[in-house]
């Protein structure tokens, strides 16, 4: 499933945050400029910031720069054989280190194999770091990058490193012909923007959590597909996936455990859950006496913006109560299998379990 996995309110995530908080004590602040290609201006933005900070009285040094660095009045601690000179930096102990090419792969037998690990050490000494990286060097993005470019970068930086940064800033500019194939560059540009949006979304969630704000809003579309025995699970899941992909939002799938289902409905529901898992979705099992309340509660906690459900097959169903109570998210009702009118079905309708018998809702 292309939609990103949910990262909210899961125990591992909370633990990670607490640990990150502990690590941050006494640690330098990390700021990363994220770009999508060489020549978009990351390094320039980084050095501009270094210069401005120096003007404001901070003690700034350059620990790694590209060879074509324009003349600067900033102090340089020259790398040794391309590798950041950690002992020299620790002795000098500046306030801020500027480090270009975060993805640099150190030569064999260096203290650390990768430059980002050197940066970790510098941060642990309480020194702030400002650095720059291109999206194609982010470990988790390399497969996607390879699809566009046909090339796989050798060195990499784990995405986790971006998520743990205190600040990440996007360096955006439309691609121009001097930079290469503009189509490939546009793909990389989108990738970088979406990665940045995800980092920012986590920051927003962390901020809200740490300040005890429970907000029912967000900047991301969050779709919840609610599986029921008679609903057209495939249509809802496929549409959910397409919507989540188009909005670059999150897709969640859930069903409410109901004790009074007859065996045929139970079997159908199990098939729907299996289908969702096969499509790569994580399926939440909700427990509660009252279908409507249980679903509403989950939707609010997850800051859902769109709830997908099957149409009811009978009048006066709990569905009407749900629609009335669902005030802060959209409710989208889907025709049951075989009931979509020819014009409205997004795919050819199948003959299936559609019947006039009492529905699950």
């Amino acid at each position, binding site marked *: 499933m292309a939609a990103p996995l949910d990262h909210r309110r899961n125990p591992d995530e909370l633990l990670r945050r607490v640990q990150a908080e502990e690590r941050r004590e006494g640690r330098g602040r990390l700021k990363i400029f994220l770009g999508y290609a060489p020549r978009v201006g990351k390094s320039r933005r980084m050095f501009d910031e270094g210069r401005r900070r120096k003007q404001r009285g901070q003690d700034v040094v350059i620990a790694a720069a590209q060879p074509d660095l324009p003349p600067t009045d900033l102090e340089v601690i020259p790398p040794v054989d391309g590798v950041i000179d950690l002992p020299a930096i620790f002795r000098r102990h500046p306030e801020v280190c500027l480090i270009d090419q975060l993805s640099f792969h150190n030569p064999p037998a260096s203290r650390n194999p990768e430059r980002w690990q050197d940066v970790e050490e510098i941060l642990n000494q309480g020194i702030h770091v400002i650095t720059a990286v291109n999206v194609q060097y982010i470990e988790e993005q390399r497969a996607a990058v390879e699809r566009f470019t046909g090339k796989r970068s050798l060195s990499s930086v784990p995405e986790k490193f971006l998520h743990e940064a205190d600040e990440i800033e996007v360096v955006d500019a439309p691609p121009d012909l001097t930079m290469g194939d503009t189509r490939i560059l546009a793909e990389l540009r989108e990738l970088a923007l979406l990665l*940045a949006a995800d980092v920012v979304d986590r920051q927003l969630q962390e901020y809200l959590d740490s*300040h005890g704000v429970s907000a029912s809003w967000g900047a991301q579309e969050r779709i919840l597909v609610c599986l029921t025995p008679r609903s057209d699970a495939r249509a809802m899941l496929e549409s959910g996936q397409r919507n989540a992909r188009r909005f670059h939002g999150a897709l969640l799938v859930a069903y409410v455990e109901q004790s009074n289902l007859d065996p045929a409905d139970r079997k159908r529901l199990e098939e729907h859950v299996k289908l969702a898992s096969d499509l790569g979705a994580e399926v939440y099992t909700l427990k509660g006496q009252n279908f409507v309340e249980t679903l509403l509660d989950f939707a609010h906690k997850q800051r859902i913006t769109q709830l997908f459900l099957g149409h009811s097959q009978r009048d006066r169903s709990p569905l009407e109560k749900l629609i009335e109570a669902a005030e802060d998210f959209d409710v989208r009702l889907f025709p049951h299998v075989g009931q979509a009118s020819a014009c409205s079905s997004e795919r050819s309708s199948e003959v299936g379990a559609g019947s006039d018998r009492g529905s699950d809702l």
Partner: protein
Amino acid sequence: MPPHLKIYLGYAAGVGKTYRMLEEAQALRAQGTDIVIAYFEPHGRQETIAKTEGLELIPRRVISYGGSQFEEMDTEAVILRKPAIAIVDEFAHSNVPGSRNTKRWQDVHELLAAGIGVLTTMNVQHLESLNDQVWQVTGIRVRETVPDWVVDEAAEVVLVDLTPRALRNRIERGVVYAPEKAHRALDNFFAEANLTALRELAIRHTAHEVEEKLQEPRREERILICLTGRPASANLIRRGKRLADYLRADCLAVHVSKAPEPAPDEAIERHLSFARNLRIQTHVVNNEDVPRTIADFARAHRVTQIFMGRSGARPWWKRFSETIVQQVVRQARDIQITIVAERRR
């Protein structure tokens, strides 16, 4: 090549949109491009003002309104001067009454039609389709909006990013606002959560614009918005159109009037015209049976998804009768129906 519109998109005052735009203007001038400043809002920011040095400035036009004098871009003068590229700050600006156009983006369209390329700036919260979401997040109802299609048609949208921390630092240092205004700003609109949410919207929107230009539009869905005179219809239109745009769906709107001869209803007319401004095809149908008419209209127009607002609060004596939403839901179980939330705070 037709003249280009390039938008520098930010998420708040002070992120550096105008500065970035002027940087590019200077680079173009250095390459020998005939470029002028058609409108520039200095806001007393020294670094930005310094970037205008050496650029030709077309004087603004003075317009009197309500006993005061206002200055707007002199669109006519810019067209007469006919540079290759014009710098026009604050794309979402509403002109003072008595101007040639009500919105600056309409002035910009005139420049483009006259063969002049335009660089301009705007914040993501001025996008029409995000109006309700922005209000929900920040508590601010943005009045100056730009229809999404205007931004979608731009040749380029560039994100001007700055972290909220850096922006708040700039405000504290008095770079963005005068000191007495700065503190109020930091507590209100520029609160960190607001900025972070708006920033995410700006990044996601830029990604959306990049993607739109990468892919051929494929129309496979048709969305029908059911309009009424209720104020929430504006929210419904924005939300429906936003979903339609993201899903690359056609979008149409219908209002079903019960009266045989629809009396001109101001609220409904306003909503219909609002929808047309967003390039939604609108229809008015007269029929007593509103739910059936909506369902029939949807089938006749091969609609794949009906968008409806929630039914308003009902007086107690009507609690046991069905709402229009309930009736449409019953009549159109063969069509996807979306009941749109009313954004509240």
